C-alpha cells in the first residue's frame, strides 16, 4: 500500500514540477506582460504543490532522501510525470493546449483527492484545488480565445492539436496502482476523472469552435512507468544541473 502511495505521490509531484519547469522556460518571452505574470503565477503554484507531494513521498519512503533530493537528483527513468507535461513548449497554441489538458485532468483528480481517506492528501489537495480552479479557468479561456479568435490563431490551434492530443491517453486510462488506491479510498473514482476530463474538453472546445479528436490511443510510452519521450532527459539535465554538479552543496 505504501509503495503504491509513494508511486502516486511521485506522479502528482513530478507532473506539477515538470509542468512548472516548462513554464519557467517562457520567462521573459511571453506574448504579453500580463501573461508573464500569469505563467509565473501558475508555475509558482505548481512548484509549491510539487514540494508538498514530494515531501510526503519522502516521509513515507523514509530512505534518507528529502523532497529536494527527489526533485533534483532522480534520473529520468525514475521520474513519474505525465508525458504531456514534458513536451516542448512550441508556440503559444501548443503551450495553451498542454496547459488546458493538464489543468482539466488536474482539476478532476484533485476533486477526488479532497475526499481522500488520507488526511494529509486531503489537506494538500484542498489548497491545490483552489489554485487549479483558477489555472483551469485561465487556460480554458485561452483555448476559447485562440480557437475562436483570428483565422491565424484558429489554424495554429488546429495544427497544435495533433502534436499534443496523443499524450492525453495517459489522462484517461488508469493503471493497477491507481485502481488499488481507488479501492482503498485514497484517490477518486478513475472513471469519473476520465468522464469529467472528457466533458470539460468537449464543453471548452465547443465554445472555442474547435473539433474534438477521437480518443487518443496507446502508443507504447508511459510517463507513469518512467518510460518517457526524449524531451524529459534534457529538461531534467537543465533543472538538475547545479545539485548534480555539486552534490555536497547547500544552497
Amino acid at each position, binding site marked *: 500500500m505504501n509503495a503504491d502511495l509513494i508511486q502516486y505521490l511521485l506522479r502528482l509531484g513530478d507532473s506539477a514540477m515538470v509542468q*512548472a*519547469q516548462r513554464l*519557467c*522556460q517562457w*520567462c*521573459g*518571452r*511571453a*506574448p*504579453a*506582460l*500580463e*501573461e*508573464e*505574470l500569469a505563467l*509565473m*503565477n501558475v*508555475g*509558482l503554484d505548481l*512548484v*509549491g504543490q*510539487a*514540494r508538498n507531494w*514530494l515531501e510526503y513521498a519522502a516521509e513515507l519512503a523514509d530512505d534518507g532522501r528529502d*523532497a*529536494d533530493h527527489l*526533485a*533534483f537528483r532522480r534520473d529520468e527513468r525514475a521520474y513519474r510525470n505525465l508525458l504531456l507535461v514534458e513536451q516542448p513548449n512550441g*508556440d*503559444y497554441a501548443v503551450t495553451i493546449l498542454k496547459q488546458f489538458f493538464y489543468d482539466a485532468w488536474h482539476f478532476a483528480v484533485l476533486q477526488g483527492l479532497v475526499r481522500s481517506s488520507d488526511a494529509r492528501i486531503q489537506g494538500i489537495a484542498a489548497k491545490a484545488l483552489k489554485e487549479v480552479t483558477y489555472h483551469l479557468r485561465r487556460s480554458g479561456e485561452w483555448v*476559447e*480565445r*485562440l480557437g*475562436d*479568435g*483570428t483565422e*491565424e*490563431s484558429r489554424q*495554429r490551434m488546429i495544427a497544435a492539436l495533433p502534436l499534443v492530443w496523443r499524450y492525453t491517453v495517459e489522462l484517461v486510462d488508469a493503471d493497477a496502482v491507481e485502481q488499488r488506491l481507488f479501492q482503498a479510498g485514497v484517490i477518486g473514482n478513475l472513471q469519473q476523472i476520465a468522464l469529467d476530463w472528457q466533458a470539460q474538453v468537449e464543453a471548452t472546445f465547443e465554445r472555442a469552435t474547435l473539433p474534438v479528436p477521437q480518443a487518443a490511443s496507446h502508443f507504447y510510452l508511459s510517463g507513469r512507468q518512467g518510460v518517457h519521450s526524449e524531451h524529459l532527459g534534457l529538461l531534467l539535465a*537543465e*533543472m538538475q*544541473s*547545479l*545539485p548534480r554538479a*555539486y552534490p*555536497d*552543496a*547547500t*544552497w
Partner: protein
Amino acid sequence: MYAQLVETGVKRLKTLDEMSEQERAFQERIDAEIKIEARNWMPEAYRQTLIRQISQHAHSEIVGMLPEGNWVARAPSLKRKLQLMAKIQDEAGHGLYLYSAMETLGADRDTEINKLHSGKAKYSSIFNYPTLSWADVGAVGWLVDGAAIVNQVVLQRTSYGPYSRAMIRICKEESFHQRQGYEILLTMMREGNQAQKDMVQDAINRLWWPSLMMFGPSDEHSPNSAQSMAWKIKRQSNDELRQRFIDQTVPQLELLGCTAPDPELKWNAERGHYDFGQIQWDEFYEVLKGNGPCNQERVATRRQAIEDGAWVRAAAVAHAKKKANKNAA
C-alpha cells in the same frame, strides 16, 4: 537606480519671475510638497521627462527579468526556485504598475515599448551584464535591488502622485528581494563549499562596479539633474545616493566575508563615509549606448517575444470583440 540620464529637454532653470502664471502655480504647488495628479496642469517638459523616466523604469523591470530568467530553470532547490519565480513575478507586476502610472500621463504602452525595441528608450545599464553563476542571482538581489531601493525610497516622495504611489508599493517588495538575495549569498558563504564561496566572490567582483553605475553619472556630469530636482521628480543627487548605498552595503559585504574589487574602498572617519575608487565612466556610457556585453541579446529577446506574441494578442482582441457583439445582440 532604474532610470539613468533622463533628459528633461530644459537647458536652464527658469526663475519664478520668468514663469507664466500657470507655471508658477505649478512650481509653487511642488514647492509646497503637494502631489501633482494626472488631471492637473503641468508643463509639457515635466510630462515628457516623467514619461521618459517612468518608462525607463518600467522597461528596466521587464528587461531585468531576463538575467534572472537565465537561472530560473536551474534554481538549485525547491525553496530557491519558489523564491526566484516569485521575484520574477513581482518584477512583471512592477512593470505593469509603472506602465499604468506612465499611461496616466497620456503615453501609450505599446508606443513606449516600441521605443525600447528600436533602441530609442533606455533601461538600467546593469541588466546588460550576464548572470554567470547561481551566486549572480543572489548578488543581483542584494546589490541591484539594493541600489534600486536606495533610489526608490527617495522616489516615494517624488512630485507626481501616481509614480510616488507605485514606488511605495514597489519598495516593499524590493526590500524583500534584497534580503532574499543576501540570504542566498550568506548561505553559500557560511554553509557552502569552496566552489560556492568562489562563485560569491566572483559575482561580487563582476557586479560591484556596474551596481555603483546604476546611480548614474556623477553630479558634475548630470546635466538634467537641476531641472529634475526643481520639479522634485528627483529628490537627491546621484552622488548622494551612491554614497548612501556604499555606506550601507560595505558592512554587509564584510559580514559575508567577501571583498569589493576596489583597493581604495575604506572608511573615512572625517567624512563619516566610505571613500571609494574611480568609476569607469567610459564603460558606463558605452553600455548605455548599446555596447555592453548583453545589450543586443536583451533587446532582441524582448523584441522577439513581442513579435512572436502578436498573433496571440490579435486573437485575444478579436475574440473579445466577437464576445461583445454576441452580448450586444
